[in-house]
């Protein structure tokens, strides 16, 4: 289903598409209204491309919900006025949900979870969330996971019955003490606000796992949890091509182990292609609200306002789909992971829910310095 979100004044009935914290009129109260039964009340076929919408023709529908609220929706499919519009959840490993954030991060994350078949959560479910907070940079620079996305995920889990004391956020930095690396990420404030647990992965126990020719020393922390979320910020990367689900898992490695791999970028990429096999499974929530483009972190990359949340059960599906949406070459280590049977990387076989692949596609600035992208593995 498509969600149409409004903030409504109890007094006047006025509606806003923007979240309203404080009522405009004194003594008023604002309530959030979410419509889900949508039908098409307008449709136009657009033949004019622009950088955000390079593939034409496309259609813009005007959807109207049970409350009379409306919103536009881009699609490559033909609809008629009067048609019902709905997105059906897809639990498949090959599925990825792609949701545009309509000012409200909770609704976007919540819808993304719902569209991949949702997650079963009880008060006893132990939940691990692994963001990217390894570089000391504010989220608006696209270098770390947006705290709004993190907060939305916490709220979505609490809404489903999770207890804050059973939620743990874990990260490590290979270059700085974690408290310094994560200082600008907004994580410390979130952890204090929701009273969730916070773990520095470097302080956890590690075990050796041999996958193919690679020996990984991986944290044993994920094994303690029933439900695990990998929440990378989506960035281009001069070395890897793109940072997504796979790259974010590298910080479950023991530091020396990681640094050994990092000495040889090609070997590191080969190892990265099998790293998920050394860890329990994670649901990926790809944070492309504010990502980075160009040569990426530390190499004059720049923030990109992508305004998207992705969700997928399989990291190969996630990273391959995200790369293709942003017109990037699928990083060779993702292709290899796919070829090794870890997940689907052929975009034709990946099923998009929430938004269609062709309707989402847009260019971002490429990581032109990436030898890996140029030469392959």
């Amino acid at each position, binding site marked *: 289903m498509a969600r149409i979100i409004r903030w409504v004044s109890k007094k006047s009935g006025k509606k806003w598409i923007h979240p309203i914290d404080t009522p405009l009129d004194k003594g008023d109260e604002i309530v959030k209204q979410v419509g889900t039964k949508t039908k098409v009340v307008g449709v136009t*076929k*657009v033949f*004019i491309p*622009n950088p955000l919408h390079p593939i034409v023709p496309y259609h813009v529908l005007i959807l109207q919900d049970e409350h009379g609220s409306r919103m536009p929706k881009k699609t490559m499919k033909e609809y008629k006025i009067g048609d019902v519009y709905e997105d059906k959840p897809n639990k498949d490993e090959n599925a990825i949900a792609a949701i545009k954030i309509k000012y409200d991060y909770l609704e976007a994350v919540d819808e993304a979870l719902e569209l991949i078949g949702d997650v079963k959560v009880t008060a006893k479910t132990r939940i691990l969330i692994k963001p990217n907070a390894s570089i000391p940079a504010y989220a608006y620079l696209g270098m770390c996971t947006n705290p709004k996305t993190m907060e939305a995920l916490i709220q979505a889990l609490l809404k489903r019955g999770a207890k804050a004391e059973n939620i743990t956020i874990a990260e490590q930095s290979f270059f700085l003490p974690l408290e310094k690396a994560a200082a600008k990420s907004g994580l410390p404030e979130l952890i204090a606000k929701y009273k969730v647990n916070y773990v520095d992965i470097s302080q956890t126990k590690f075990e050796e796992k041999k996958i193919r020719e690679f020996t990984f020393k991986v944290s044993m922390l994920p094994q303690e949890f029933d439900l695990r979320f990998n929440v990378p910020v989506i960035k281009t990367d001069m070395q890897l091509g793109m940072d997504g689900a796979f790259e974010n898992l590298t910080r479950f490695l023991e530091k020396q182990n990681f640094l050994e791999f990092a000495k040889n970028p090609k070997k590191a990429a080969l190892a990265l292609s099998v790293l998920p096999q050394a860890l329990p499974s994670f649901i990926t929530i790809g944070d492309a609200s504010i990502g980075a483009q160009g040569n990426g972190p530390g190499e004059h990359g720049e923030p990109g306002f992508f*305004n998207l949340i992705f969700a997928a059960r399989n990291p190969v599906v996630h990273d391959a789909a995200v790369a293709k949406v942003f017109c990037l070459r699928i990083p060779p280590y993702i292709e290899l992971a796919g070829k090794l049977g870890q997940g689907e990387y052929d975009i034709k076989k990946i099923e998009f829910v929430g938004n269609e692949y062709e309707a989402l596609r847009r260019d971002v600035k490429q990581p032109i310095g990436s030898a890996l992208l140029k030469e392959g593995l």
Partner: protein
Amino acid sequence: MTFIRGVGMTKFGISDKLTHQMAYEASVEALRDANMAFDEIDAVVCSTLEFFQSIEKQRHFPAMLSSMFRTHVPIIKVEAACSGGGAALWYANQLPYENILVVGSDKLMTMKSEAITDEFMMAAENRYEQTEGLNFPSQNALVAQEYMQKYPSTTPHHLALIAAKNHANAALNPKAKFYQQPISLERIESSPVVCSPLRLFDCSISVDGGAACVITKDKADIEIAGSSLYTDYLPTFERDDNTSWEAAVLSSKEAYAQAKVAPEDIDVAEIHDAFTIVELIAYEDLGFAKKGKAWQLIEKGHFMKDGKLPANMSGGLKAKGHPISATGLAQIYELVKQMRGLQGERQVRRAKTALAHNVGGAGGTIVTHILKHRGAA
């Protein structure tokens, strides 16, 4: 009371001049027309959009105009998307200065069409409209669709008649992009669809250009008898009814009241025809036609040169061209010249009372000016 003493404009089209140079050219013409030296100007109100993707890379337009005019008088910029020129005149009219130069200028043609679409789209709401591909042609296409659903006697043929009228007028206007280039009704009706149901010739044309006027508290031949600006919600999908734009209704009502005239007193009008449907609904919103009945007047030639109310004798945005912030002041230029009987082949029979209707975005800002000829100063 405020009067218009002089008007000026550049030829609209592809110019080798920069934005501030076009502003200068139009201003000098307006000063000459007013028989004034710049030293007599007490303040300047200007409008420009300063496009992000333009090769000019020039901001702080007021100070740039200070450089051009070698002056230290107050210069303030007003921005209201496509209604920047009209809004600048409205704002200048509120100021206490004796003599004010009002100038608008924009340069679009150094950008390729995808970039122009992108730039214009930034005047649409970001999270719903921009991300869902709802550019201005598609917004107005949906307005046309809604209108034709509600009033099925109106067809695309009526929109084509508006385009044909404006092209015929522009062919007689040496300052118009389509000067001496008449476009047949057949060509208009067979032009490609850009956003269904709108065709290429339903859309105005992007050009470079500048326009200016000098207003004064001293009596001059043209009085600004009515000047009104109203706003509306940015996204069109948030409005209950797009077959009428409330800001147009409100601003015209107020302007008529200020000028103590009724719609039937208007002799000649310049109407914001960014898209033919905008001109059509303006006929009704401005009170020239009953709701849903504009098509009857269009068929009768009511808005043609020899009709009861000639509209867009300049060729309008459609065929004279639409250099955004200059557009509202170019409308004033045409009306003043018409009221002075100077427009040669396209001079209308009677032009004592005139109306200018300038729209920003898809009805987000609408300015109405009513001018009266008061005889020689």
